[in-house]
């Protein structure tokens, strides 16, 4: 068979967006935006040149982490972070269960659903750090503000995913329980809960991970934990200590992530 390619015609891969007007419009709009955005980034070469020296110091500091000269501060900061995480995850999950159930359309009437979804949306919109600042203003510096922040964040996360899970459950089992004349609570404990419990445990562990990670950050605005120690060490130009703290945070986060993902895999 001879090859019969028509002259001037070539195959080209199909485009992601069919309509050429929209395709080119998006592309040109994107380029205009990029140019405008890049132009509005002010770069101060003098400051960066001076900063490079400090960047060098940071790098040197990071290759030689110093775990010992501020050992007590680091240990108490890490313990505080862990303690905050444990308490906040526990309280957060306890609050999330009723809100998660209330956010599942197949179990509750519309008004309850809307209220619970509003709580979830509010908790998920704001970055933890903003919430932390507000709690620090209200409750003063210290771990309690951090715990409240993490509880606030956990509620949005866990109850949203729990609600989605409950909406996906097998309705037949619920109906079977209901057919025996069970009350609403009995329907919940014997029809719904067994189906979502493994997922709930998995979610709580996952949120524990996230809370630990966040607890390292909210300390920067005064809400307790290792973040406060880290911030102080950077302010004092003690980069060796800062690097030790960062390495410890990374190790701790990775360790909990390994444990929690192993447990979650066994649950599924």
């Amino acid at each position, binding site marked *: 068979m001879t090859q019969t390619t028509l002259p001037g015609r070539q195959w080209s891969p199909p485009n992601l967006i069919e309509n050429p007007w929209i395709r080119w419009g998006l592309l040109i709009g994107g380029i205009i935006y990029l140019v405008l955005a890049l132009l509005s980034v002010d770069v101060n070469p003098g400051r960066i040149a001076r*900063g490079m020296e400090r960047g060098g110091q940071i790098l040197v500091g990071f290759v030689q982490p110093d775990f010992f000269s501020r050992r007590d501060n680091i240990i108490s900061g890490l313990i505080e972070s862990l303690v905050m995480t444990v308490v906040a995850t526990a309280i957060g999950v306890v609050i999330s269960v009723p809100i998660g159930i209330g956010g599942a359309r197949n179990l509750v009437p519309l008004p309850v659903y809307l209220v619970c979804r509003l709580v979830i949306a509010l908790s998920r919109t704001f970055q933890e750090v903003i919430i932390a600042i507000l709690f620090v203003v209200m409750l003063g510096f210290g771990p309690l503000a951090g715990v409240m922040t993490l509880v606030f964040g956990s509620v949005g996360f866990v109850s949203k995913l729990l609600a989605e899970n409950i909406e996906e459950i097998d309705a037949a089992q619920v109906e079977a329980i209901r057919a025996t004349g069970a009350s609403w609570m009995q329907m919940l404990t014997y029809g719904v809960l067994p189906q979502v419990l493994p997922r709930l445990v998995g979610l709580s562990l996952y949120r524990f991970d996230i809370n630990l990670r966040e607890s390292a950050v909210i300390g920067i605005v005064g809400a307790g934990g290792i973040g406060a120690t880290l911030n102080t060490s950077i302010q004092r130009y003690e980069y060796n200590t800062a690097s030790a703290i960062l390495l410890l945070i990374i190790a701790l986060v990775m360790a909990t992530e390994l444990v929690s993902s192993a447990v979650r895999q066994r649950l599924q």
Partner: protein
Amino acid sequence: MPVLEKGSEKVWQKRDRTQALLSWLGWLVGAAVVLFCWQIIADNTNWSFVADAPEQASHMIARGIPPNWGYLNTLWQPLWDTLNIATLGTLLGVAVAIPTAFLAARNTTPHPIVRYIALLVIVGSRSVNSLIWALLLVVVLGPGVLAGILAIGLRSIGFTGKLFYEAIEEIDPNPVEAVAATGASAAQVLSYGFWPQVMPSIFGVSVYRWDINIRESTVVGLVGAGGIGIQLQASINILRWSQVSMILLVVFLTVFVSEWISASVRRLLI
């Protein structure tokens, strides 16, 4: 099924005796740990501050309502900066993450050692929060939008890279083999065998991360890395709650819109 016999009556039970005891023991230990941790927190808390928290909160809310609408005019510039930090940061992160992901995926990596280095990059970037990146970068680059962009970008490498390489590992090998069988070069295999399969998830993940980054970029300003966080910090420091509530309103709307955009783009892609 465990059944409890009460005289002549049989009562069905969910657990038998050992299971019930174990479950109670588990709850007991868990509660003890939480209470112990709570004790530590309570010791480190200044309860006199907590006692007047409701009063503080009501002050805060009373002074925050209504929001200072006139302040909105000074917020456009920081808002534009915030959007730029999120968008340019995401682009930067994705640009680094795509090659890293191809190096980290089991089916495309050139060598196991390269794979581990790429995985290390991904894990390292994921473990450090963007606010901590910003804290370090502000020291080096000075305060400004640039530090924010880099901080967001560095954090995004890990998140998007992880999801990218998982997507690459999950592809169907048949089209790749078919393209390779035609005698295509490595670059051609990549662009005609791999790319069409992973492109939707790369776009989807990037848009998803962009929407997370909008949220993150509202706070990098707190440590001086540009965006609306600088105004927030300043307003809180001088206790102008009507400005704070205006900023929070703007942040809420921005996040709401970006979430909507990201959700609709992802729905189109699937």
